[in-house]
């Protein structure tokens, strides 16, 4: 296990810049914390999960599928440098693992893997959660992990690339620090964990009446923020832009909370009511995905709850659901 002192961080990251395109947790001018470039704001490793869909690094809100200029079809050029991304706490890493599997399954989504495959992902854990709270280490699911022990960052590599990147760092000075990393329980208990499992159980056993979805749907203003902020939401729409010489086809994040999401040209719509759409949003994560992938696809990152203007993110809905139908 390696170590790095806070004052050496900037130097460490800038030493990577010739090889990697760096994306790090930064603080934007109004106090919003995101994964971004150091040009946009100072490094901000503390504070837990950043806002914004962290998986956007590999699946951006809008990306070009191809362009056709004067009859010649072209895919977007590959990036000059692979990505080095820091800022995934364990829950976000779980989300990444989930969508890695999703995009690889069956037909492999080469557009996603073009960015993902060459990327190095660093986890974040330790006493760097909101207000200095403890985030238990992921212990995997990433190339390397930074663990804040309240005075230094302990760095562990899980992959060959990770090991190469930290090869130049000094070994941990104090064995006590390494001990601390190992002692933190792998599964940090979270009351939301129990809650979401309970809600999932209620859904899978059909114990939630239709009227519940209509009621929640009544409070939805169809902003689509829940889907757009969710690290495991992967739905997209496709558009063509045509000018005299060039056509560009691109894909953009889509939302199952929109009436047009499944509406067919003839008007038939399997998700044709607010209640249906609201149910789908929750049911997909808590019942459909468990059936297909063997796990709930909400990893409790809290982003949809933070972004929802009317307080009906998945944790809030699960709470209501469990309170009423347990």
């Amino acid at each position, binding site marked *: 296990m390696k170590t790095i002192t806070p004052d050496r961080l900037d130097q460490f990251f800038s030493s990577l810049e010739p090889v990697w395109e760096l994306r790090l947790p930064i603080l934007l001018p*109004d106090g919003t914390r995101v994964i971004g470039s150091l040009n946009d704001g100072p490094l901000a490793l503390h504070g837990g999960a950043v806002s914004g869909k962290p998986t956007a690094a590999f699946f951006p809100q809008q990306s070009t599928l191809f362009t056709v200029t004067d009859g010649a079809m072209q895919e977007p050029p590959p990036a000059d440098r692979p990505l080095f991304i820091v800022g995934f706490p364990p829950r976000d890493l779980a989300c990444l693992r989930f969508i890695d599997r999703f995009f690889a399954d069956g037909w492999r989504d080469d557009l996603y893997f073009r960015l993902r495959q060459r990327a190095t992902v660093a986890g974040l854990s330790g006493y760097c959660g909101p207000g200095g709270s403890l985030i238990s280490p992921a212990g995997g699911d990433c190339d390397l992990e930074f663990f804040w022990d309240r005075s230094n960052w302990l760095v562990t590599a899980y992959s060959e690339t990770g090991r190469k990147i930290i090869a130049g760092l000094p070994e941990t000075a104090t064995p006590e620090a390494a001990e601390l990393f190992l002692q933190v329980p792998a599964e940090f208990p979270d009351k939301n964990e129990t809650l979401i499992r309970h809600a999932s159980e209620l859904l899978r056993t059909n114990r939630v009446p239709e009227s519940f979805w209509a009621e929640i749907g009544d*409070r939805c203003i169809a902003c689509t923020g829940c889907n757009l902020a969710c690290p495991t939401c992967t739905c997209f729409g496709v558009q063509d832009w045509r000018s005299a010489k060039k056509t560009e086809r691109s894909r953009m994040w889509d939302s199952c909370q929109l009436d047009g999401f499944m509406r067919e040209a003839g008007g038939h719509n399997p998700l044709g009511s607010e209640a249906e759409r609201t149910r789908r949003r929750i049911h997909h994560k808590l019942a459909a995905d468990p059936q297909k992938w063997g796990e709930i696809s909400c990893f409790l990152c809290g982003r949809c709850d933070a972004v*929802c203007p009317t307080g009906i993110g998945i944790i809030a809905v699960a709470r209501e659901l469990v309170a009423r139908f347990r």
Partner: protein
Amino acid sequence: MTRTLTVCPYCGVGCTFYLVSDKGRLVGVEPSTTHPVSRGGLCVKGWNAYAFVHHPDRLTTPLIRRDGQLRPASWDEALNLVVERLQAVQAKHGKDAVMFASSAKATNEENYLLMKLARAVFGTNNIDHCARLCHSSTVTGLAETFGSGAMTNSISCFDQTDVILVIGSNTTEQHPLIGSRILNAVRGGTRLIVADNRRIRLARHAELHLRHKNGSDVALLNGIMHVIIAEGLADREFIAGRTENYDALAESVADWTPERTAAATGLTADEIVAAARLYAGAERAMVVFSMGITQHSHGVDNVRCIAALAMLTGNVGRPGTGVNPLRGQNNVQGGCDMGALPDLYSGYQKVADPRLRDKFAHAWGVSSLPAEPGLPLTRAMDAASEGRLHGMFIMGENPMLSDPDQGHARKVLENLELLIVQDIFLTETAAVADIVLPAACFAEKEGTFTNTERRIQRLYKAVEPPGKARADWEIICDIAERAGYNGMRYTSPAEIMAEAASLTPIYGGIAYQRLAAHGLQWPCPDKEHPGTPIMHLDRFTRGLGHFSPVVHRLPAELPDAEFPFVLTTGRTYFHWHTGSMTRRTHLLAREEPHSFIELHPDDAARLGIRHRDMVLVSSRRGEVRTEARVTDMVIAGVLFMPFHFVEGAANALTNNVLDPESSIPEFKVCAVRVEKMP
């Protein structure tokens, strides 16, 4: 990957977000988590606000009409021609033969400059903007009663109120992040009254949903005030200490018994009494209103009644109270503040006042400024058809689709001697122009927008404009220079704001370095002033609040045997006005791909019209084909149609009858017929 903080270009709520760009191209949007208004959220339009910016339809070069066709031209050619032809029209027909239409989509700095261009360079007060079509009734009505036409309170007040009366505002669709606050407030125990005959989302959460007849707002509000006075619920202390002319009001509502009100509104007497008791019984009550109140031939009267209702119950000048007009456009408040109005300079300073004319003339370095108020935008079409107006310079507006009585507007615009349009897309209006100037959009320039709660916020440049397009402020300065005026040399929008602030007392303390991430709320008279979240705290801007009694008048055109339905127009959640941006945004266009009309199931059954049938809708002005949406959103006898769509344009039907005081058109009521297409 770069992030640039900016202000949403759609509604007046003023949410901020970051534009995400990669190698000079926008690839997405991320909300600001700290913003006091949006608090980390956005609506669907905000989440998609990046998506039209690089659309291939963007204007990239100036265009000049030659041999009937718009053809590319250089900036030199185009701007010299702009000046030459504007001057020629003025030489031939007089200074007031040209009109400048500013834009509630443009920045404060650009609105300030266009009004300066009109007044100082071209010597006319013919400057106006689309506030004329949305809240001119509010500005007039509240200026008379309170002394200031803006929202009295702040958006944060929605979290601190006991009762909210929403009248003529579909808040969750048109001001979604305020609508959301209302929904949250209701869950927290705030009681909600919705007065609107459409079954809007808020109505599902309301304790009282008053589905009163279109255009019967004065009757309803007078009736409510009658009950409040009759039942002794009025705030005697507030009336005595803060207001004047109460007796005249009391007398004017004395006849409006619940029974008479019920007959005039189509409600029951019980509903009126319940609404009065609920609103007046609250410790803190707010009124929220929008186009449903203002867009009537008696729009100013509607606003007077709302002001009176609030004063009658002492609901002004405290947190969680107030009269809260929700401004439509992102910068319609700023457009008004900056004096893009025919009778007012920036900060609502009257052009009729010789001392103010002198002040501006001196500051602008001109010998004199025109004294007569200019033409309101809505009177421009008539002025042109009567031979009083021959040239128009339109910046960022699309009257071909947004003005009432489209047939008339089209004829006038096509027959103008000179039409210049400055815009980001070739809109329906730009398509008939003589000269088209390509402008930068919100993401491609700096400036400030003022939101509905008077919050002045900065936008920052995220990407370069396409092709040769330039920021509106740069184009305006260039025109001034070519017209021989040397008083418009600025290196940045910050300098323009510094000048505007020096001439505008309510913006006196505004400077870019003070705006930071969350801006300042005017009135902000000096550099130390922290801004004003709540107005009229101890005294009204005009001193005492004035009760203005109002006589109920019916809408100008009512249904009859030939045109048996009331048509009311508005917008949908997914589109913005004439759709030049939202119809080019994939997800938004997919949600509402085409024109439609809402029709009550009983009416539909009677006329043999089924959901999704094509129907023909006609009025005395025109007819359109559109798709029927059979829904109980509307009451029987009333049809609703959005005005976004050029194919099936609602404004081909609407009635260009104006409120005599504010010149706002009666978009909310006209008489139509609907029939199934053969």
